[in-house]
């Protein structure tokens, strides 16, 4: 049998399997997992657009807002800046403070005003009618949004969505057939077991790459949607397409790496949850492992492809922050070759396992 015929067999098996992977009732949760970030980014986009439109009608000149100083009265502020978008008074309360050894009790009335200058929102806080603090922040910060997307991609997509998605998709390829008592149909077709393995892996890979790649790309697009058009066009001209490509590549490689591992564990073990727990723990503590051990994980190579480093969690326990010492990321070529080499080795082990696989529906 020539290689061309085997390739055709692989594709035929992949095509048949693809329908099951894409449209099976059991796969719907994978779509949910892949599209959840898009829904949240859509919500954020709608909120920003809505606020921009609503607040834009009551815009105040930026120069006027900058001219307001601490110590101004609320009347002066209203005279200068006009009606605020939000004006909120809190009930009076007493504050006791010690001045020169004597206790003084004052009644304080708080007031909060919010203005919008077309780009930034200005938060003004008053106590007894005197301005105490003035703070401005952009309604939408593009750099911050990109940083958040990097965090979402690296913490949610790579560590959770793709991990559990691949666990579901690739484990289903053989273990699922075993539980459905349908694996013997596949073993009866006139094709080598390795061909069957390649076909099933290809189907899982295509499905996972399409589902998670599309999910990540959609989230990326929805993150960009509410941004300022000028900033957006500058971003697309310089690095937008490159970022999108590397995020998609990272998602694809993660699917290939995790997919091969879960396919193998589905073949070698009756309960693939155990390796899943071990891998999940290993990948979770990856950041605090010694440099050498960090290199023994899919995440190390895949994260290196991401164009923006993930934000550091300032709320993480001190011990974790002290122990966190990310290893020097490898070059992109090394990352791609590294994951592909791991995938090839794991698939080779799987091909040995599938040849020895015996159907025993009774123990499932």
């Amino acid at each position, binding site marked *: 049998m020539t290689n061309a015929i085997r390739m055709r067999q692989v594709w035929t098996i992949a095509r048949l399997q693809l329908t099951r992977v894409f449209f099976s009732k059991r796969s719907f949760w994978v779509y949910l997992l892949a599209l*959840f*970030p898009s829904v949240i980014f859509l*919500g954020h986009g709608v*909120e920003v657009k809505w606020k921009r439109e609503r607040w834009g009608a009551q815009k105040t000149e930026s120069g006027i807002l900058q001219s307001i100083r601490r110590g101004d009265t609320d009347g002066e502020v209203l005279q200068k800046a006009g009606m605020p978008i939000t004006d909120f008074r809190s009930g009076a309360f007493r504050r006791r403070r010690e001045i020169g050894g004597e206790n003084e009790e004052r009644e304080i009335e708080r007031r909060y005003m919010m203005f919008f200058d077309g780009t930034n929102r200005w938060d003004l806080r008053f106590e007894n009618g005197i301005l105490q603090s003035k703070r401005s922040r952009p309604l939408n910060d593009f750099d911050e949004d990109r940083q*958040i997307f990097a965090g979402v991609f690296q913490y949610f997509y790579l560590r*959770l969505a793709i991990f559990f998605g691949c666990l579901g998709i690739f484990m289903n390829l053989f*273990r699922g057939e075993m539980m459905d008592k349908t694996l013997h149909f596949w073993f009866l077709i006139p094709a080598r077991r390795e061909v069957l393995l390649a076909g099933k892996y290809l189907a899982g890979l295509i499905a996972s790459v399409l589902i998670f790649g599309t999910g990540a790309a959609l989230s990326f697009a929805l993150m960009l949607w509410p941004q300022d058009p000028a900033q957006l066009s500058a971003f697309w001209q310089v690095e937008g397409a490159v970022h999108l490509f590397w995020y998609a590549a990272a998602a694809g490689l993660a699917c290939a790496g995790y997919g091969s591992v879960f396919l193998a564990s589905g073949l070698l073990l009756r*309960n693939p949850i155990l390796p899943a*727990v071990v891998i*999940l723990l290993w990948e979770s503590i990856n950041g605090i492992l010694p440099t050498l051990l960090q290199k023994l994980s899919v995440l190390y190579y895949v994260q290196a492809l991401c164009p923006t480093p993930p934000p550091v969690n300032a709320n993480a326990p001190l011990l974790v922050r002290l122990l966190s010492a990310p290893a020097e990321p490898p070059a992109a070529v090394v990352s791609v070759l590294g994951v592909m080499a791991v995938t090839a080795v794991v698939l080779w082990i799987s091909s040995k396992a599938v040849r020895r696989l015996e159907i025993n529906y009774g123990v499932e």
Partner: protein
Amino acid sequence: MAVYRRGYQRYQGPLTGEWDRLLVLPRFAWESLMQQRLIAILFVLALFWPAGCALFIYFSHHLDLLQGFGGAASNIFQVNGEFFFVFMNVQSFAAIVLSAFAGPSLIAPDLANGALPLYFSRPLTRTTYVFSRMFVLAGVLSPVTWIPGLLLFAMQSGMAGWGWFAENYRLGLAVMGGFFLWILLVSLIAMACSAYVRWRVVAGALVLGLFFILGGAAELANAVLRVDWASALNPGRSMEQVWRAMLGLEPLPGPDAWQCAVCLGLMVAGLAVVLRRKLRPVEVVS
């Protein structure tokens, strides 16, 4: 009596009490669970941390053994609410892993093999069935959660004296109450997943995934929407907030203990609805 005269006769012997019936299923299930090597290994692994905590308490009362640390030892080796919070956090993870392996084998096989009519033809209601299955998990999870917690509390009370106990009895109650809540939540999640997917292996993955993915999704929503209320959707985080309130510790940023408790209550109600829908003795297949 001739054989043809032996018609149906109601059982006239003594009946088991309602509470005894509740324990029939757990009795057999515990036996079969403990025969699984993996469960036994996980069970033993889950007891390492309590053993380490016991050593910690011992050293906190024998600081003379740690002279190498200097004065810092007395600051590090303090047994207080924070100590029990860390203990509960680690053991709660052990409880999740144990329930992911032990939980799905409780209901999924009964549903997959159509065995529910056999149970419900006995004097067992759906509620009794759910409670007895929950007892199985509670029996497996208790020795790694509230029992070592109470032993640690007793050990500390014994070593620190009556004064410490009188001042901190609330910690012991919090450890026990907090773990009871956690066992209830984890057991319901394990049983609902088991009933929903009917596949033991997939249900196990779902139990694990639910905790991790809900945690990740909550953090994602917080980061993207610049809010902190989404933390309440993370069962682990919500429970931590409730535990901190019970232990009298500073609350974590985000929704307060009451809001988290309401969210947890809603989750429990949702899981109970799933179990009610899925546990039907008769299934009509069209």
